[in-house]
């Protein structure tokens, strides 16, 4: 009985040691991963700031105006003027397509009129 107890506790100790060893390596791996992620985040931040600067540079008002002038024939963009504001009642109602009857249905009123007794 006592031997069994010793053997089980020894095996348990070995098991726990193995578990601790594995946990330790898992933790180290996780920390390395976190470090990589931090580096990636820093790189992404740097790239983002460059892209933001580039976006702001490409969208600078002077350039947009020049582009609008160069492409005037296609885009016909003009500066916004007060006259471009309109009233709601200046907007015309949409023109509805007249109902097109494509399949004509022949209607005969002879039988109906006879049954109603309303003969014109």
């Amino acid at each position, binding site marked *: 009985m006592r031997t069994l107890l010793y053997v089980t506790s020894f095996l348990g100790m070995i098991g726990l040691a193995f578990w601790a060893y594995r946990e330790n390596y898992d933790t180290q791996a*996780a*920390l390395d991963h*976190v*470090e990589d992620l*931090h580096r990636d*985040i*820093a790189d992404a*931040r*740097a790239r983002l*700031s*460059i892209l*933001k*600067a580039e*976006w*702001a*540079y490409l*969208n*600078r*008002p*002077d350039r947009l*105006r020049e582009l609008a002038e160069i492409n005037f024939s296609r885009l016909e963009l003009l*500066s*916004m*003027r*007060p*006259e*471009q*504001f309109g009233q709601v009642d200046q907007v015309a109602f949409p023109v509805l397509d007249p109902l097109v009857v494509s399949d004509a249905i022949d209607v005969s009123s002879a039988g109906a009129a006879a049954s109603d007794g309303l003969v014109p």
Partner: protein
Amino acid sequence: MNRIPLRPLARILPARDRGQNPDAIERENLRIRHEQMRDKARLRAESRLLVMGVLFLCAFVTIGGRMGLLAASEPTEPRARATGASIIASRADITDRRGRVLATNMETHSLYAHPQQMIEPLRAAKELKAIFPDLDEERMVKDFTDGKRKFLWVKKKISPEQMQAVHDIGDPGLLFGPREMRLYPNGAIASHILGGSSFGREGVDSAEVIGTAGIEKFFDEELRDPAREGAPLELSIDLSVQAATERVLDAGMKLMNARGAASVLMDVHTGEIIAMASLPDFDPNDRPRPPTEGMPSDSPLFNRAVQGVYELGSTFKIFAAAQAMELGLVRPDTIIDTRPPFKVGGHRIGEFEGHNYGEITVSEIIQKSSNRGTGKLALAIGIDRQKDFLDRMGFFKPVPVEMVEAPGGQPLLPSRWTDLSTVTISYGHGLSSSPLHLAAGYAAIANGGHIVHPTLIKSKAVTYGERVLSEEVAANARQMLREVVSEGTASFGDVPGYKIGGKTGTADKPKERGGGYYKDKTITTFASMFPADNPRYVQIVTLDEPVETSGSRPRRTAGWTAVPVAAEIIGRIAPLLGLRPEYDVKELAQITLVSD
């Protein structure tokens, strides 16, 4: 606990029988008992001391061990941080009120040399000269070969292409260091507001970027503070409005042959400056050096809207009229005699081109811009009350706006405030102030009589200052300003749809070296507010030495120069500000709804 009796009968009685003293037995028992008590107490004290000793030992061993560990181990970054936010060490961005970038940072490289590591210094110098034509080859050869220098900067900022070209030289003595540089992507737009930046202390691996002017310098500490974690500084400026203003103002300045121009657009309730331009301007990416000769005001670095103090002419008349109404001296329809002669302190006060407007109402004084009329109102107000009013409106000290240049806009006041000063100041001569001062003054009329403090920072709430005019007086003053545009001197200022109210001001330029005024140089100003029935914005446009030459003789008044420019600016920016034009509705045709 069982105690042994001190006088046990079993021993006392035999002792008595033997004729012994029973007290001796009692004493003996007492002694034994005391010894037992002493032994017990000692044992307890000893065990307590032991426990205490062990505890102290543990504590000291723990602390000592930890100290030893800290001292002996290599310092490492904590790897498992809970927060993902790292410290952002770069200078914070500056954005406009809608988050568009006005100033940001860019990573670039600097180029330096270690001459002792160079293989072919002569070839390196030659090829560097080919890449950077502005470098001096002889000087480089001297620096690279004299053997005394161990380190020298070649270029502070280089582009990636240049870096690759230097790399291709292949000399191990040419080295690169990372540099963060400040970039103003919009070029010259809002250049005076942003100011500029340069490098402060420099090392090989980094250099600190410091603000040198404008808002960059005013908020230098805040922008560099790592605790911001890169949160951008939001200005009250609207980039598209600022760009449109600068473009129209530039065209207007050229059309009117002016030397310079300035404009301020301000929200009348919050005091936020939506756009502020001063021309000529500069590119903050390549900020010019301050001029060493000539007038500082001729430099493009000079901010006319904040630093430029000018006599702003008749735009001041509305303040005299408003104060007279506030004090109950006059009403808008009170008749004032503006016929000559009107002499103050021996000086005759004249009108523009010698007009005589006769007996007119206060409204008409503003509408026709009568000097004698306003002068009479100012005399009725008196020196002290006029000074007090202008002081409260902020005309006696620099505008407290967030720029390092702001204290340079100290208004020029007369050294002795005489009756004549009172009269001339009432029509804007003898007191010089910046266009920004005037914007703040007009904002007080526009918002119903409250002082507002101009600011360049986006604010969330309306913060009115002291009340200087009653609601009714402010409304009357606005009505007068509206009439100036609809019927008076600023008729070119009407923009259909936006009821503009405003006042023109034309002032002769004082000679720089003193001794009177130029006859043919003027500063023309148009101070306006729109929409006049419920103003939201105040706009000041000032032109320096404009002349309009379409007529038979040159015209230099504000009505012909500043007003059309201001009207064009308002026509461009009001839609950008989201203001919907409102046209006076004519009598609607009678529509009868017919039902079938």
